[in-house]
Structure formats: C-alpha cells, structure tokens
C-alpha cells in the first residue's frame, strides 16, 4: 500500500489579489479622490472656491510621505539583511567585498546613532551631511571624468546622422566654452539657437509621442489588454 502523496494547500489569497487587485483598487480610489477634488474646487475664482475634498487630499499627501518613509525603511532593512547574509554565507572570499559589506552595514548603524539624539535638524546630523555626505556626494561626480571619452569614441564623420550629431555637439560646446565666445561672440547665439529651435522641435515631437503613447497605454489598461508588470511576472 502506497502512502498518499501530500497535496499542497492552495493559498487563501492568491498573489494576484494582494499584488495586483488590492493595490490597483487603492490607487484607483486615491486617484479618483484627487481628480474629484480638482473638479469640485476653483482656485481661479475670487474668493477661491475650496473643494470639500481638499482636507482629504491634504491628508492623503501626508500619508504619501509616511508610506514613502516606511518604503525607504523597508528598502534599507532589506539591504542590510542582504549584506548580513552575504557576510554570513561567505559566497565570496574577496576581502575587499566582505570588508565593504561590513563597512556599509556599520555605516547604517553609525548614521542612526548620529541622527537619533537630535533628529534630522539636530546639529550632529547637519554636520554629518555638510561635511561628509556633501563631499562624498560631490566626489561621486568625479566618476564622470572619463565621459568625454564617449565624444572621442562616437563623434566621427562616418554618416550624415553622426555628422549631424557631431556638428550639434560642436556648436553647443563652442557656446559652453567662454574662450571660444571671447574669440567670436556669435558662437553664443548659435549655441542658444540650437537649443532653442531644433532642440525645442525635437522635444515637442517627443512629448506628442509620449502623450499619444500614454493614452493608448491607458486605454489598453482600462479594457484589460495591458497586463502590467505583476501580471507579466506571474505569467
């Protein structure tokens, strides 16, 4: 006599419900309230007519900040958990990686220690930001120092398209460098014209394309033709 194979119990609530249906419902309700608020008040009138929904949208905006803060917290905890697990499992033996992980994790607790006494407006946290974060953040931009390599690599007169891009780049750079403008002032006006006229034409065309694309996407979503990321993940 063979033992019956254990059957896996179906979850009480499917992933589809809590990952897609419930969030979509919440987002739809919140969006509807914001839209209703827009149409029920008129700030243009004198005196301005305030929508009865304005306190609700104000409260929702506040809750948006609260949820955002918790999302950040969730992200940080997840990162810490990942880093701790990496050190624990030692999938890599590289000292630089493990050391970096430990330093990163220790930094989170150090910053927490700095923030907790005075809050985000406390002198300790402000000093931390002004003298550490500011310079570390500024230093990160030095990573851009090799970016001009792309100009050397790609600006070649190999085709009409690349020559057009090359010419545009030259005209903008001539405007950006004051030494060239000092030699011949019209470089300034030419560069500004490139940004003000051809660039504007392209940006407006792109905007029109976004707008039509967004409307098509929204209509497809309304008639359930657009699966969305969660649906695609579950497929």
């Amino acid at each position, binding site marked *: 006599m063979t033992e019956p194979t254990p059957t896996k119990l179906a979850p009480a609530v499917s992933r589809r419900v809590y990952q897609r249906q419930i969030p979509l419902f919440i987002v739809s309700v919140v969006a509807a309230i914001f839209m209703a608020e827009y149409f029920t008040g008129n700030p243009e009138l004198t005196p301005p007519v305030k929508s009865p929904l304005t306190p609700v949208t104000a409260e929702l905006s506040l809750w948006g900040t609260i949820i955002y803060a918790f999302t950040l917290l969730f992200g940080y905890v997840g990162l810490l958990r990942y880093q701790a697990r990496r050190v624990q499992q030692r999938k890599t033996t590289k000292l630089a990686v493990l050391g970096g992980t430990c330093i990163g994790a220790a930094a989170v607790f150090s910053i927490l220690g700095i923030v907790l006494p005075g809050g985000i407006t406390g002198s300790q946290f402000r000093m931390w930001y002004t003298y550490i974060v500011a310079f570390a953040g500024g230093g990160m931009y030095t990573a851009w120092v090799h970016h001009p390599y792309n100009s050397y*690599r790609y600006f070649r007169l190999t085709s009409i398209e690349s020559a057009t891009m090359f010419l545009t780049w030259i005209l903008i750079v001539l405007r950006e460098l004051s030494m060239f403008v000092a030699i011949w002032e019209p470089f300034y006006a030419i560069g500004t014209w490139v940004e003000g006229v051809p660039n504007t034409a392209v940006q407006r065309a792109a905007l029109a394309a976004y707008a039509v694309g967004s409307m098509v996407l929204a209509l497809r979503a309304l008639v359930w033709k657009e699966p969305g990321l969660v649906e695609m993940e579950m497929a």
Partner: protein
Amino acid sequence: MGLVDRLEKFRMTHRQMAILTSSLALLTIFISIPIPMLIGPITRDFYNEIQKLPPGSVVAWAQNCAFGAYMTKRDAYRAVIYHSFDRGLKTILYSFDPDAPQLNAALMAYCNVEKKYGAVYGRDYVIFPFLAGEETAMAAVASDTRVLKTDLFGNDIETLPLMANVRSMKDIALTINDAGSFTFVEMWIRQWPAKYGNRALNTMVFATVAPVYGVYVHGALDGVRGYAEYERLTGYLGVDLISMNARNLQGLAVFIVVGLGNMSWAIARYRKREVKVRPLG
C-alpha cells in the same frame, strides 16, 4: 614613422581620457587664466526677473536636487539667495527630494543671511520638510500651502509670519526650480508656473526648459557657465568662475582629441584599413 602614420595610429582609452581631463581640472587650481566671459541673454533674463520684483515679494524655490549635486551649485545658489535678499524678497524653500531639507538648511547656513542682512527665520525665509509624491506633492502644495502643517524645525505653519498671507501658489510672485532630472523640471512647470501663471526661473540646464522658454520659464542658469555668468553679474563670486577655467581647458583638449580621432579614422579609411577602438570598460 611619418606624421601621417603617427596620426593614423592615434588611439585613446577611457582611462587616458580620465587622467587627461582630471589633470587639466587640477591645473586650474594652481594657474588662473583670465578669459573674458560674455554674460548671455538667458542669464540676464534670470537676473532681471529677480531685479524687477518689488521688495516684500515672495519667491518659492522647489528643490529636487540631491545633496551631492548641491556641492557643485552651492556658490550659484548663494548668489541667488543674496540677490533675492538684496532686493528685499522673501524666500520659501520647498523640499521635494529626500535630500532637499538638508540641502536647503545647509544652503541657508552657508549664506548666513541672519548676519549679512539681519534676516529672521520665519519672517524672511522658511524651509519646509520633505514632501513625498513628486508631482502630486508639488500640486498639493501649490493648491494649499497648509498641506504642510509644520516647517522643517517643527514650527506650526500658522506661527510663521511669512506664511500668513501665502495660502496657495497664487500668492507667490516668482518660483525657482532645480532638479537632478529633467522630468522634475517638467513636473514643476506643469504644476506651478503653467497652472498658476507665476514668473519662473530654472537653475538646471537651459535645454530642459528651452521648449517653454518665454512662455512658462523666464530665465535660466545654464549649468556651470550660467552659474559663472550669474556670479559675475551679481558680484557674488564663487567657485564656478574657476570651474569655467577648467571647462575651457578640458573642452579644448577634448576638441583636439576628437579631431585627432577623426583624422586617424579618415587616414585609415583612405588607406582602406579597419579602425579598431577599444570599447568602454
């Protein structure tokens, strides 16, 4: 090997480019090259917009920049703040990036307007805490400033004299925006100047606001060049004037390198040889 052969063999790696540009940037710390600088019409527009406001007008600054970026803009921001205070304007600093409250607080500490102008917090300027939601947050603040109940330091908004007559974006004469991404600039344009008709200035890059320049945006500081021009125009000189020297040297070097790269490619093509350039990485 002749000159043409040398030119044909000219190659550069991204590492060499990094060394070249950073060396030239460092050089400007030690050697100052006085190059005349034209102050362009867009920077002049920015200056004039602040200049023509009557004293007591309220300026709202929508800050979307991260703190790291602030370090490259600090002196230009200081020039804007000093120019505003010279004109007797009041400033409200809104924070739409998680870093922005610290940025705004650090900027005002750097400017030290209390000492320079005898300014009083709450009466002459106010800093608000981070409000999440990006475009929704901007829209909410614009329609009702009381969405934020307290300022960054926890003071009730009703106790701040500056905010007494600022109920919505309609009570703001001029808005300024800076951002780390052009999408934030578009959000700001849609929700503040386009909706409420305020005069508007941008301190990111002109290309971002060019399509609506003169319609919704009336002045811009176009990156480092714009900052340097504005610092010279207002007389509040800062690091951006030195940065312009670095840019001049780096730009010239890049021009030469790009030119040599094209010559190398053209000679090889004439000689029907394949040009191989090391990819990035």
